[in-house]
């Protein structure tokens, strides 16, 4: 079996099997939250892991996706599903516009430029209170899926529904990202990650490929934000904030930004821990900061790849 299929199989099994171990219905919600974060983080695997380009502002795109679902149904009369697509299209368009100039930057400069972009978006969401409700947030309409299922004679709880839906979208997202890895575009991205100079001389239009990775990852973040908004039925500008961007990147690097499965693993840990250990809450920032530092120093490839290496022994490959 190819690694791609193995990854998808493992992922699907975990999503299906996990509910059998849930002590209470509350855990469906945590699961859904994990999957929603994992979607955004999978996008970052493409951007950071494949293409080697940092973004410290991807929460901005999550914000666009989230607020599209809050605002488009009310102001444009769109159904929430269409609002998800609209948010994704807006995010893609913005990423395309802004990505062109800023993806020429490297390292720190790119980090700061993307960070600035994310903060600008969250600033707009906070300040334009007449549209967005300001810092207190805004209500989000119901997706309507539960009602639809009820009409079809299938009663399902909100927690279970969101668990299933988010899990499905996550697996879909992982499938796309895994397809990309082993494709011409994926190889071009990983090549420019390894050596931009060599990639250029191999005929790779580096600017164009970076832009593609940026736009695709922005769409992942946007969809993640949309689902978060629709599940919570309320959204605040925090979704687009710096901390959320940092959390996304930390999830990705904690699990292993080079692999889809690893990044999803990272999303699982960092989402579940604060939810399960409420004592943790007071120390959340300190622990998050420590995790970031320690993982980067001791497990620079991330938890899952380092673990796999251990298991396979020192020969590595």
């Amino acid at each position: 079996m190819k690694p791609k299929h193995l990854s998808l199989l493992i992922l699907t099994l975990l999503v299906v099997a996990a509910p059998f171990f849930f002590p209470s219905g509350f855990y469906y919600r945590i699961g859904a939250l994990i999957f929603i974060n994992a979607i955004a983080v999978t996008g970052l695997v493409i951007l950071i892991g494949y293409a080697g380009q940092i973004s410290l502002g991807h929460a901005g795109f999550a914000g666009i996706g989230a607020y599209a679902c809050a605002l488009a149904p009310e102001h444009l009369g769109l159904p929430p599903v269409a609002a998800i697509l609209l948010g994704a299209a807006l995010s893609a368009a913005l990423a395309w516009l802004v990505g062109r100039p800023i993806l020429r930057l490297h390292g720190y400069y790119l980090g700061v430029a993307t960070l600035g972009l994310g903060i600008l978006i969250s600033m707009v969401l906070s300040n334009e209170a007449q549209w967005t409700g300001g810092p207190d947030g805004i209500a989000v309409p119901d997706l309507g899926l539960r009602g639809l299922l009820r009409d079809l004679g299938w009663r399902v709880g909100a927690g279970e529904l969101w668990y299933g839906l988010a899990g499905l979208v996550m697996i879909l997202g992982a499938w796309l990202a895994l397809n990309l890895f082993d494709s011409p575009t994926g190889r071009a991205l990983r090549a420019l990650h390894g050596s931009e100079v060599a990639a250029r001389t191999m005929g790779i239009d580096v600017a164009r490929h970076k832009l593609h990775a940026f736009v695709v990852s922005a769409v992942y973040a946007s969809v993640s934000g949309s689902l978060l908004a629709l599940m919570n039925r309320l959204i605040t500008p925090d979704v687009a904030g710096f901390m959320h961007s940092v959390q996304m990147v930390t999830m990705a690097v904690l699990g292993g930004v080079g692999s889809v499965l690893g990044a999803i693993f990272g999303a699982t840990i960092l989402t579940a821990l604060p939810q399960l250990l409420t004592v943790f809450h007071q120390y959340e920032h300190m622990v998050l900061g420590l995790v970031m530092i320690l993982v980067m120093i001791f497990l620079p490839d991330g938890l899952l790849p380092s673990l796999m290496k251990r298991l396979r022994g020192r020969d590595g490959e």
Partner: protein
Amino acid sequence: MSALLEIDGLGIAFGGIKAVDDVSFAVREGEIVSVIGPNGAGKTTLFNMISGLYRPSQGKVRLKGSDITALEPHLLARRGLSRTFQNLQVFGEMTLLENVMVGHHLREKGGVLSDLLGLPASRRKTRASADSALALLARVGLEKAAYRAARTMSYGALKRLEIARALALDPKILLLDEPAAGCNAVETEEIDRLIAEIARAGVAILLVEHDMKLVMKISAHLVVLDHGRKIAEGAPTQVARDPQVIAAYLGQHGQEQVLHAEG
């Protein structure tokens, strides 16, 4: 026969210092031309200008008669110009096979959407690339290591990998920047054989190399640089007798080879 690659009065200055100044020469189809000169003579800088990494401040580069001066490297690749690097530029985290497959990029280009969806067209291209990449790896003697990550390989192997990757573009002209540097005698011999074979297949080769034995043996034509200027050019035997070349280059190079042997 007309020239494939023409270098016409090429020059560049960094902070007022002319690293390369008014260099002209030509490479014909299937011909091996070597650029030699002491360290710091501007050989790699010249390569970087020809391959579009540096923008020359004067002069022109023409490929098959059309002006390609300061064209983006990826556009040069489309026109059939390919190169290797003095300081290795391999994709360390990718396998050897994938490294060479990247060289097929221009032939396998599709949409990012079809690649995301893993459409049959995209997978077909990947398979085709893999097949011909495997053949190229076999040509440089690396097929057994095809699935190992590049960063785990020896220096000499990576030098050959870069040649295989550059060949994957199916170039008309190949720029090799010190392909035998840091290689042992056996590896050098292999690279020597490989270069001759590539040239026989009709690919023009522009070579920078320190190994004088190799250069004298395989080059049809030599260009000698010193302090960024061309001080001589011609057939190897003729250049080797040029007193100016002996003074500027061979004397110092002789010393270098002594040091090399000691080290």
